[in-house]
Each structure stands twice: as C-alpha cells, then as structure tokens.
C-alpha cells in the first residue's frame, strides 16, 4: 500500500522541482499552502484521506492554471497526533516557510493548540473537520459541520424514533465534553432525559464495564462520540455482548468509516447527520469519487474530513480570486459580503459572514445489519446560525474565543 509520507515527500520534491523550473519561466512565485495532518499515530486512518483530499485539490487547481495564475506549493508536515508538535510545526510553517494559508488539524485539542499561534499572525487558517462548534475567530474559517447542523437534526430525530432516554459515551477532551453539553441542552429542550454520561480517557480500549453500566441505565438509544481507534473497540465489544441498542453520532460512519473497518453487524443501527459520506449518489458526488479513486485506488473510504479538506482549497481559491489578494483582511471582505460560495460535490456551500463557518446540505443516514448505508432524511441546506444568534459577529468584532451553551459572549 502507499505510504502517505513517502508519497507526500515525493510529491513535495516534485513540486519543489517544478517550482524551481517554473521560477525561471514566470515571475510569480507559487502560493505556499501549509498543511498539518496526522498520517501516522493513532488517528492516521482519518488523517490519510485529509492529506489525499488536499493533494487531489492541489493537483486539479494547478492543472487548471492555479490561483490568480500562481501555482500552489503544498507543504505537508505530519504532527503524529501530538499537540506539542502541532504547535512546533505550525510555527515553522507560519514563521519560517511563511505560508500564505495554513490548513489542517484533526482533533479539537490540536486546533485549540494551533489557534493562538495563528492569531499572532495575519495568515488565514482553515479548519476542515466537523467539530463541537463555537469558535468565533477572524483568522479561522471552518469548513466542516457544527452542532446546529449535526445535533439539532440528529437528536430530535432519534428521540422521536427511539425514545426520550439517552446514554452518552464520549471521549474525555474538549470535543467530547462540549458535544455532551450540546446533547444535554438539546435533550432538555425536547423534554428528554440523559440517563447516563461516561467520559472515556483517550486510548482506553476495554468496555465491558461501560456496557454493563449502559444496560443498568436502560436507555432507549446511545450517543457515541468516542474518538480514536482504541475507543472504537467499543462497537465490537458491545456487539459481542449483544447490547443491541440504536446509536447516534456526529463522527461515526462518514468520518471514521467504522462500517468499513468492523465486521458486520457491529455498526448496525448507527445513525449520523453528515454533509458528506461516500455513499452519496448524485452526479456531482459520483464524479468527485471517480477522480479521487483514480488518484488513490487504495482508499478504503473517502471520509467527510478528506472531502472538506478538498473543499477548503477550492474555497481558498474562490476567496483569493474574488479578493484579488492573498491577504486575510481582503479575503474577509469577500466573506463579509456573503459572496464566499463554491459549488462543492455536495452542492453549493457558502461561508457565513458572522461566524466564518460553512453552510452545508445535511442528510441523516442509518447503517443496516450488512453495514449498508441508507439516507433517512434530507434536511436541505442548513446555515451555521448558532454563533450569529448568540452574538458573535466577526464583521464587527474579533472575539478569538470558543463559545459553548454554558459559555456565551458577555453582553456588552
């Protein structure tokens, strides 16, 4: 199988080579795109599609003439899932390589480690994952889905279909904690009950006790926001113990492709709301999948992170070309005009001026006993409205903060 790193290095070498040749021909130097994605360590299986999506987009854009006539040079570093390394490599890309844009980060912990470093520069930063939402920061553009797109759709549907009692198992770091907070808030509004909440340290792989705690609490369904390969062992162990409960999640299937990694029926009855999953069957999506698999024939699954990473480069291209500038302040003027849109494989997506988060077409999917994916409901395009409603307005004020249902902007 291919190694991302070797491919990355080779590609980098090739690009540096072509850049050097190009430099003698054209006066315009290439645009430098700094990319931080884990392609080794515990999250490598998720990070690999992100690298591939970025490489595919760079190749396509370069082939069709680049951005404002300039070629893109992709500089990828592998922080190996280590937040300290994210900071070190982030500084290196921003200060030494002087990249024009920084993209990447997998966990919310890595994003929050990077953000203060980005904020000290005038370089734009694209975060390409779905996440727990709430970041109100002018330097950051978020390409993935957020709770008002994922939880506000999924949780009411699960309550209506399966019942009002939910048990939560969540990874014990900012993503899991804040997502659980979202669930508490939405369940309260719906008159539901959280009968149990268990936070799992990253790296824990044994769940016999958790499974029994769940059986004791007798929930109607489970919210599974456990993260990483070790914690995913929960599904195998729950299936072996015949737990047999409906499950919902904001990160399973379209992100972790557990239905491809586990033997059926371990993921039977899992539900998720997603802006992208490989099973989307539209002409645009099929065309995109064909190009991807032509370039990366060994890809097990094109996950939403990889898809969002691909979109991020096209969004960057759109912003730069509309602004006719690579400066963050000029790009933000385009965002403020509400005109920052691209035609993505899922459909048209736009950046919301107030929060700099992206609108998405959301679908609710379910997994069957043979791990087949069915679209249960199509919500159409949902705006990332929550930050704007609670008072984040980046066109007026740069908060540089992350808000949650229990940490709202102070009224001023």
């Amino acid at each position, binding site marked *: *199988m291919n*190694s991302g*790193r*070797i491919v990355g290095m080779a590609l980098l070498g090739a690009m540096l080579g072509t850049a050097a040749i190009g430099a003698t021909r054209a006066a315009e130097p290439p645009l430098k795109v700094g990319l931080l994605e884990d*392609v*080794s*360590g*515990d999250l*490598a*299986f998720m*990070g*690999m599609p992100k690298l591939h999506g970025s490489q595919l987009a760079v190749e396509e854009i370069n082939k069709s003439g680049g951005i404002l006539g300039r070629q893109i040079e992709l500089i990828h570093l592998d922080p190996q899932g280590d937040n300290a390394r994210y900071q070190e490599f982030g500084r290196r890309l921003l200060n030494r390589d002087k990249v024009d844009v920084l993209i990447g980060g997998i966990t919310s912990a890595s994003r929050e480690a990077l953000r203060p470093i980005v904020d000290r520069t005038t370089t734009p930063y694209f975060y390409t994952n779905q996440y727990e939402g709430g970041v109100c920061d002018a330097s950051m553009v978020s390409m993935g889905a957020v709770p008002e797109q994922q939880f506000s759709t999924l949780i009411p549907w699960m309550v209506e279909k399966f019942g009002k009692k939910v048990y939560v198992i969540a990874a*014990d770091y900012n993503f899991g904690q804040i997502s659980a907070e979202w669930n508490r808030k939405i369940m309260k509004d719906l008159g539901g009950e959280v009968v149990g909440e*268990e*936070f*799992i*340290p990253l*790296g*824990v*792989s*044994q769940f*016999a*006790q*958790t499974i*029994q*705690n769940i*059986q*004791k609490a*007798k929930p109607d369904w489970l919210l599974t926001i456990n993260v990483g*390969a*070790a914690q*995913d*062992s929960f599904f*195998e*162990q729950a*299936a*072996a*113990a*015949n*737990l047999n409960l409906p499950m919902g999640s904001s990160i399973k299937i379209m992100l972790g492709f557990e239905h*491809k*990694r*586990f*033997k059926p029926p*371990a993921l039977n009855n899992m539900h998720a709301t997603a802006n992208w999953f490989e099973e989307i069957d539209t002409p645009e999506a099929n065309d995109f999948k064909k190009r991807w698999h032509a370039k990366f024939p*060994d890809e*097990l699954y094109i996950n939403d992170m990889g898809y969002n990473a691909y979109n991020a480069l096209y969004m960057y291209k759109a912003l730069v070309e509309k602004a006719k500038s690579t400066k963050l302040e000029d790009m933000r003027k385009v965002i403020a005009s509400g005109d920052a849109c691209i035609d993505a494989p899922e459909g048209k997506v736009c950046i919301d001026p107030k929060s700099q988060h992206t609108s998405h077409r959301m679908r609710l999917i379910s997994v069957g006993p043979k791990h087949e994916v069915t679209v249960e409901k199509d919500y159409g395009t949902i705006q990332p409205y929550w930050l704007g409603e609670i008072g984040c307005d980046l066109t007026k004020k740069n908060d540089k903060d992350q808000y949650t249902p229990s940490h709202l902007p102070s009224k001023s």
Partner: protein
Amino acid sequence: MSAELFSVFYQFADVFAFLILSAAGLAIVFGMMGVINMAHGEFIMCGAYVTVGLVNLGVPLPIAQILAALTAGIIGMIVEFLIVRRFYKRPLDSLLATWGLSLIVTQSMLLIVGSAVRGIGTPEGSFAIGGYTFSTYRLVLFFCAVAVLAGLYIIFMKTRFGVIARATMQNAAMAKALGARTGRIYSISFGIGTALAGLCGALYAPTMTLIPTMGATFVVESFVTVVIGGANVLLGTAPAAVFLAMIRMALNASYGQIIGQIGMLFAVILIIRVLPEGLSSVLVRRGR
C-alpha cells in the same frame, strides 16, 4: 441479586484477564531477565496482525491464534539473538534499543500494511443473566489468563528447563560453571516472553480495532502489573493483577472509566511507596 454478583465477577475477570495476558510476557522478559523491553507492545501488535491475517486466509481462529503466538515467539528469539543479547549487562541501553525497535516496527507496519485493517469480529455467543447480557468470548479470555498463569508456573517451577532458567537468572556465571547453556536459556526465555505477548495480541485481536500503535494500549497496564508484582514474578504477578483488577473494577463500576484509571495508577504509586520490592516481597517473607 445473583445477576449483580455474577456481573461483579464478570467485570473482575475481564480486567484480571486483560492485566494478566498483557503482563505475562513482560513478567518473563522484564521481571525475570531484567530486560526493559519497550517493544513489548509491538510483539502484542504482531500477534494481533498475524491472527487477523491468517483468519482472512481462511485459518480457523483458535489455530490462527496459536500460530500467531508462535510467530511472535520466533521473532522474539531472532530479536534476542540480533539485538537484546548485546545488552544483558546494560539494562538502560536495552531500554533505548528496544524503544528504537518499537518505533521502527510501528512506522514500518504503517507503511506496509496501512493505517487501519478491517477487523474479523468477535466469535459469536452471548448469554443473559438478569437484565444483563454478556459476551462469552470475554470469559474465554479469563480462562486463557488462568491457563497462562498455570502454564508459567509449571514451566518454571516443575520442569528441568525451569530450574536451569531460574538458576541462570539468579547467577549466570555459576550456572554456566555448572554446565548450563546460558545463552540458549536466555534465548528461549525471551522467546517464551514474546510468544506470550503475541498470545495477548492474538486473543484480543477479534475484540479491537487493529492499528499499528495498538500495542500502546496494553503497555502501561503490563508494566504496572509487573512492577508492583515485584522481584519474584512467578509469585507476584497474579496477586498484583487481582489487586489492581479489584480496584479498577470497583472504581469503574461506581465512577466510570476516568476515575478507574486514575485510581488504579494511584494505587500503584502507593504500593511502590509502601512496598518498594513489590507484592511478592511480602509473600516471600511470609513463606520463610
């Protein structure tokens, strides 16, 4: 009531099996031979990957697991011959060498096999008691752990090889003078240790996600079990696992996994503070 009681036993057995199976190999290599094997987790990973590979080729699971353990044992003997042998008198250097080996192995697996391998699924079978359902395979793991303990005891206490091995570990020069082929003893002991690590990976392979760094999830538990077991590993490892399993199970059940993990590691700190020689020192003193 009986359902609750069984559930407590089941949870205890589950944690106990995890501790024993992950620690057994290390008990031989670290506890007896004094080699700090930082690549212990990678031998576990090796056992898991070989098992999954063989099952995908159509080999029945139990046979695949035995072959995986043997593979890990043979690779262990090769590693002993090529690397570890040169570090018996330099324990800290052996730490560095085996750590380097572990890094090379995890990265190579990532390059060769890829970042994720499709699982094989836990063998069918679950049973219900009261309101709870349990996986039969987890009980199989418990009986395997007990069998491993019994097997180790027999090999090292009841066989001629065991006597010579223990003599070699205590005083290699004297054993050599008396005619023991100490080089071979070291090699076989290391092989047994890595085979047990491979067995751990083989047994847990169906229940887990396979990634190249999966060994890391076993390493902390295996080291703490061996360390608080103390100098006499054959005597210390089992009581250490019982002790840690009880603490972890009780805390997991009442306060969840975070407190369970913190509590277990806290207990380890206390034990090392109060009994620097580990649990086996108490047992040995009693025995005298």
